C-alpha cells in the first residue's frame, strides 16, 4: 500500500475532473492513502461553493466536499491560481468568501511538500 498525492487541474465542467474524483475514491477503496489533493490551474474552480448543477447531474464541487468529509483527505487549493479565477478567502467588505470550507487555502509550496512526501504522484 502506498501514499499518493494527486494534482487536479481541470474545472468542474470538465468530465476529466470526475475521473480524478473516482480515481481518488478507488485509491482509498483499494487500501492506499492520499496525503493530499492539490487543485491548480482551472482545478481551483472546483472549490467554488456557489457551483450549481441540475439535480440529475453530479455536482463536482459538492462531490469533492463530500469526499473530504467522508475521508478527511486534505484538498489543497492554490490561492494564487484561485484569485485569478475569482476565488477569494477574504472577508473584507469588497470581497466574499466563496471557497468551500472543505478545501484548505494553500500555495504552491504545498505542491512541493505533497509531491515530495508521497510515494506516488499522479496528475489527473
Amino acid at each position, binding site marked *: 500500500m502506498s501514499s499518493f498525492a494527486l494534482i487536479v487541474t481541470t474545472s468542474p*465542467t470538465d468530465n476529466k475532473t470526475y475521473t480524478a474524483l473516482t480515481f481518488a475514491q478507488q485509491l482509498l477503496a483499494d487500501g492506499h492513502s492520499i496525503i493530499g489533493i492539490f487543485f491548480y490551474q482551472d482545478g481551483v474552480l472546483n472549490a467554488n461553493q456557489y457551483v450549481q448543477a441540475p439535480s440529475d447531474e453530479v455536482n463536482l464541487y459538492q462531490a469533492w466536499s463530500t469526499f473530504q468529509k467522508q475521508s478527511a483527505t486534505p484538498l489543497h487549493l492554490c490561492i494564487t491560481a484561485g484569485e485569478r479565477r475569482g476565488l477569494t478567502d477574504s472577508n473584507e467588505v469588497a470581497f466574499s468568501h466563496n471557497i468551500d470550507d472543505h478545501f484548505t487555502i494553500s500555495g504552491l509550496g504545498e505542491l512541493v511538500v505533497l509531491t515530495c512526501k508521497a510515494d506516488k504522484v499522479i496528475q489527473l
Partner: protein
Amino acid sequence: MMSDQVKKYAIVNTSATFNKFNAKEALDAALILASYEMPVALYFIGDGVYQAQKQQNAESIGAKDFIATFKALGFYDIEDIYISADCLSQRQLATEFAFTDAKLVSKEEFAVRLNQADVILTF
C-alpha cells in the same frame, strides 16, 4: 418572445461527447434557437462525430444523459443533421446513430450545406 427576423443557424460540433462541456452547451443553444422558431441545423465534424454514436452511457461517468435528447430533436423541428462521413470513417465508427434523421455527407456536401446558414456557431 420572438424576433421579427428569421435567420438560419448552424451549430457545428467539433468536440467529443465528454470533452469539456461543449457538446451539452451546443445542444442547449440549438434547442433554444429552435424554441424561438429559428431554423437550426446540426453539424458533426472532427471528434464531434463521436457525439452521434448510439449506446453511450453518460451517467456511468457522472454526466447527464443529454444524448437521449438527440432522439427528441424532431419535436423541436430540428431535422437537418449532417455528419461528416470522412471524419466518421477516419475514426472507424459505426454508421448507426443516436438520431433518426442524421445524414452522412461528404466534406463537399458538408461545405455546401453549411453555406446555407446565416449564422454559424462552433462548439
